[in-house]
């Protein structure tokens, strides 16, 4: 088991390195640089040049990359070009917001998809099943930013019961914190719930036809016990993998939703930083996102390998 984990971790390193290189190079390919923003809108060309020199932006790219890597190895993410705040603070502040949103979306989607998926599988072909299938089709097809707009239209503008955006820290004000969380979490979560529902339903359907379930039933066990104790348990194994994958994507996919609801997470941080050409912030946050994503994939793989020994024994290359 440990050999597997180590092997996977080792395989991760070149990916991370290459990603960091891509991130760095890409940003410097983009036209416009932070010197102008930092110098201010009324700066003359020579002032901007001086600022650029002071920021070290006129050195060759590879040198800048090397310097950046050096800082990274010392866990120094640098300072934002624009606000001079340490990047680690900026990302550190945005990180909990994104995690909170992702977890809430994940929770909501599981709360929706587990019962729906199980019920639909139990009553296959019925009206309920058709309804659930319609729901998943809709949930998969509706773009999340439009869903956000519709939810704002209905709940914030028409009914006025929920705020249309922004985030209140739940530690400061739990009620308001919850209220600001609902719409964005729903927006993100509905799409994921559609994916999960389908998966749960399919997994349950497979399991329900297995021999041991039939055996349990013929033994006269209560339906509920059969479903929960036996069928659901084994159906959950592949679901775990899917959850793991989706969580990783939730983090990135929150970018657009954070934009719609002005949610101060990593996604919105990246978009703002990109607009201002705040290289250090974009680099650090992109890298952070990539790392988290890779890590979650790794954890998912390990969990899956843990549950299914065949995987870790036969897996050659990643």
């Amino acid at each position, binding site marked *: 088991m440990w050999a597997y984990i180590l092997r996977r971790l080792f395989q991760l390193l070149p990916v991370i390195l290459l990603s960091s290189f891509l991130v760095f190079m890409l940003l410097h390919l983009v036209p416009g640089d932070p010197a102008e923003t930092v110098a201010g809108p009324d700066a003359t060309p020579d002032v901007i040049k001086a600022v650029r020199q002071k920021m070290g932006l006129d050195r060759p790219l590879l040198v800048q990359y090397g310097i950046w890597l050096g800082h990274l190895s010392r866990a120094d993410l640098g300072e934002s070009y624009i606000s001079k705040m340490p990047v680690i603070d900026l990302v550190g502040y945005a990180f909990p917001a994104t995690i909170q949103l992702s977890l809430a979306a994940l929770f909501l989607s599981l709360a929706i998809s587990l019962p729906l998926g199980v019920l639909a599988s139990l009553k296959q072909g019925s009206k309920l099943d058709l309804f659930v*299938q319609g729901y998943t089709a809709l949930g*998969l097809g509706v773009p999340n930013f439009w869903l956000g707009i519709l939810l704002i*239209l209905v709940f914030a*503008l028409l009914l006025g019961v929920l705020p249309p955006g922004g985030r209140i820290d739940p530690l400061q004000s739990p009620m308001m914190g919850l209220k600001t969380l609902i719409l964005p979490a729903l927006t993100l979560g509905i799409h994921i719930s559609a994916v999960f529902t389908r998966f749960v339903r399919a997994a349950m359907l497979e399991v329900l036809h297995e021999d041991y379930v039939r055996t349990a039933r013929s033994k006269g066990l209560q339906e509920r016990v059969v479903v929960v104790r036996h069928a659901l348990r084994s159906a959950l194994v592949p679901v775990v993998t899917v959850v793991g994958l989706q969580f990783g*994507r939730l983090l990135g996919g929150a970018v657009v939703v954070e934009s719609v609801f002005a949610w101060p997470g990593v996604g919105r941080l990246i978009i703002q930083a990109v607009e201002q050409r705040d290289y250090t912030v974009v680099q650090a946050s992109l890298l952070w*996102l990539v790392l988290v994503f890779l890590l979650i994939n790794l954890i998912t793989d390990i969990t899956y390998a843990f549950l299914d020994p065949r995987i870790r024994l036969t897996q050659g290359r990643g």
Partner: protein
Amino acid sequence: MGAKRALHPEQHAARRGATESPWRRSVRRVLRNPAGGIGVSVLVFFCGVAVLAPFISPYDPVIQYAGDELLSPRAKYPLGTDEFGRDILSRILYGARISLSVGLISVAIGFTFGATSGLVAGYIGGRIDTLINRLWDCLLAFPVILLGIAVVLVTGPGAVNAAIAVGISNIPIFARLARACALTEKERDYTHAARALGGRQSRIVFRHLLPNALSPLLVQSAVAMAFAVLLEASLSFLGLGAQPPEPSWGSMLSYSRQFLRVAWWYGVFPGVALTSLLIGLNYFSDAVRDAFDPRQINIGR
């Protein structure tokens, strides 16, 4: 969705005596599937709309009718007007062009570059394979939307550049898929035979490996098309896709936000069009997947 389990192509061939072309078989299977039927109809509908837009749309989508700004749906403007007095129905009809063309182009880019590099890498193996694979891993580690944003930032905004961005984000998926196919097919008898007969590498790859990899690649194309349309809309929503006054559904939705309170139609109808197309594409790709190879695990996103 498709309760019947379709038979493996080889079994079908056995039953029909292998006289019918596998493509016709697949097509028929797609259409027989109720989901597939819906999907194909939706797709045909939007393609028709896109092609016939100049003829069926009541107004020119970029003309501003001063004085008619933000009007609610009425006889003169069936779906209302936007903040510049442009007819929303016409803009939605023309918007289909952008969504579909960006979708098609980006899938073509992904398919071409992805499939080629994947097949080559899988076939050749060794260091090159490892290196290219690492590259795909990197690209796949980026949330797709950020990859799109990154590319568009370098190339500048615009529908064409959005298509390139989406295309680039498609490449790793196709590459992975093609590589997996190449790895399997590489060990088959006919490949060994071709090599023994002294066939050129490239000929083997394209003449032999490719056709066998084609079905999963086509399935992936259908799936990728749906994602491509969604990604283009997302990029336009963020202001990085088609530029004004071009009517992209995503950018229409983005602009509608500030007027939601006074013009709900602006935020609703473009979304309906986009969602319909996406649902149709989803149904279509599901049906294609079922038709071509029902037992294959989906390697898509």
